[in-house]
């Protein structure tokens, strides 16, 4: 890899907006990513596929500009040699074998026929498809089709892998195997963008992620970096005790909460949700109240520290709830 290639940013979005008629696909996204592995995380309909289609040059931004490895991706044969794309839908020719399909796509990169078949065979083996690669695709299970899609994306050894929900349809063993394939590519110096709405799929591959919702980029960076952004945000504490009314009034009297809500579950059990920025004061006061007012706290938990909690917080900020 030349020095210029190493220093070129992986992706650069400058004020990119994509409209489908009146429907907003992505909304004013500006972003620069250096080489590495990133998870693109967002709920269904958040704009992930649109973003990936912009990256692969299948869509043109309505406004703004997109650069991938320093180049415009639209109708760019040179860039297509450096990108491997696994779309979120199937779209495979079912009448031919997986090996023929992957070999043909390799030949479209200018690889000779014999070499393409050898390389396709190796890639099918890498994704665990040796046993089924000569069978027609209509005979494949969903997991086998997913593996074949991954094989065609990595077959030409691209610098950047763009994967849209690559683990959907795979069983747990398949997920673990494909995750290992992605990790190995990252370890070998390849770059990767993995879109998913399942958090642990991304966490298993990388700790750098982009959060997208409603076509907007909510946050980007590592989990720790985004946590720092959220440092000043209220922490949510859930409490179950024998006298929630008394406890909630004490919290409000002492001004220790941004908000307090009392909820009743379907089974009739009550739960107090407290959003507070004064966690230390709250932790000091609670034992005193338990003793003084004879409270019996059965359960107390804060939102966990996972990416899920982070994502929930960012979504709340996006919706104006925090």
């Amino acid at each position: 890899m030349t020095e210029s290639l190493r220093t070129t940013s992986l992706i650069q979005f400058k004020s990119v907006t994509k409209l489908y008629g009146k429907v907003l696909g992505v909304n004013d996204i500006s972003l620069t990513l250096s080489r590495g592995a990133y998870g693109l995380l967002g709920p269904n309909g958040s704009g992930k596929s649109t973003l990936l289609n912009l990256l692969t040059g299948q869509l043109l931004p309505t406004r703004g500009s997109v650069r991938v490895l320093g180049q415009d991706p639209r109708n760019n044969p040179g860039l297509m040699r450096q990108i491997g794309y696994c779309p979120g839908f199937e779209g495979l020719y079912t009448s031919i074998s997986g090996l023929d399909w992957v070999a043909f796509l390799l030949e479209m990169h200018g690889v000779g026929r014999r070499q393409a078949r050898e390389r396709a065979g190796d890639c099918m083996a890498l994704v665990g498809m040796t046993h089924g690669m000569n069978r027609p695709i209509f005979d494949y299970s969903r997991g086998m089709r997913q593996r074949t899609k991954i094989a065609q994306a990595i077959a030409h050894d691209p610098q950047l892998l763009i994967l849209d929900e690559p683990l959907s349809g795979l069983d747990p063993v398949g997920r673990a195997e494909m995750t290992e394939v992605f990790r190995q590519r990252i370890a070998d110096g390849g770059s990767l963008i993995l879109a998913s709405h399942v958090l642990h799929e991304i966490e298993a591959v990388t700790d750098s992620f982009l959060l997208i919702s409603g076509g907007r980029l909510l946050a980007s960076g590592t989990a720790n970096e985004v946590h720092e952004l959220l440092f000043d945000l209220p922490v949510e504490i859930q409490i179950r005790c024998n006298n929630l009314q008394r406890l909630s009034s004490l919290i409000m009297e002492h001004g220790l909460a941004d908000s307090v809500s009392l909820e009743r579950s379907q089974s009739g059990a009550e739960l107090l949700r407290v959003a507070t920025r004064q966690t230390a004061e709250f932790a000091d006061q609670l034992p005193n109240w338990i003793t003084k007012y004879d409270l019996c706290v059965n359960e107390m938990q804060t939102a966990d520290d996972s990416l899920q909690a982070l994502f929930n917080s960012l979504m709340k900020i996006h919706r104006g709830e925090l």
Partner: protein
Amino acid sequence: MNVLFATVRFEYSRVMTAGRMTWWFVLAAFPVVIAGLIRLFPLNHAKELDTHFVWSGAMYLLVPCITCAMGVLLSAGPAIATELEQRSWVYLATRPNGIFWLLLGKYLVAVAWASTAAIAGLTIGVWFTGQETIVQIWLGMAGLSVLSSMAYAALFMLVGAIAPQRAMLFCVVWTAGVEGFVSLIPAMINRLTVQYRLRALFVDWVQPGDAVQDNPVFAPSLAEGPWYLQILWLVTLTVVFFATAQVIAHKREFTAAAESDI
């Protein structure tokens, strides 16, 4: 060139299915069956007509006009639409010059598929003519079949690029309206039709007789000039149609990401 060979080979393997081969045989049988019926049930007043004129005219209508146009309508017309419908487009579009090679490969296979069916049908059907000019008719029609398949495949590919979701319908409407009707209008516009050039080549190569050149309806709709000029025109039209289809396919956002996939 490796990519072109790979694309043609791949597309060819995809048309070698039982369903597609059945259609190929139906197309090839079409001129044979009609020519056989004409031979079995001749019209009463046909005896008064020049039989070379009748048979060459019939073969021209059956082979380069109907069989070739139908053949490429089935193969080239929906070329883009089928890839979009089964969502395989993006796999090819994300290869270096993938769209270009895909369309070129599909075009060449469509031309080969339609013209071989037409020539196979012609080879059997021409025996029903019982004419001494059978070789002249066969040679003329075979050449016209190749040219017709090339031009109509490019035209239908263009229509398919403009309106992929209704490609077949628009191809039929265009063929009937422009190639069938406008090509007969004695005005500048008919010079831009494929039929105008094919008819001139038919008259030049097969020599159907004075009945065509002297006919007050057909004479004004026959192109003037030598055969090579007509071929040049046909090649030019083919290149323009195909190049325009390529430009449209490259410019349009044929992504499978519908609004539901945002």
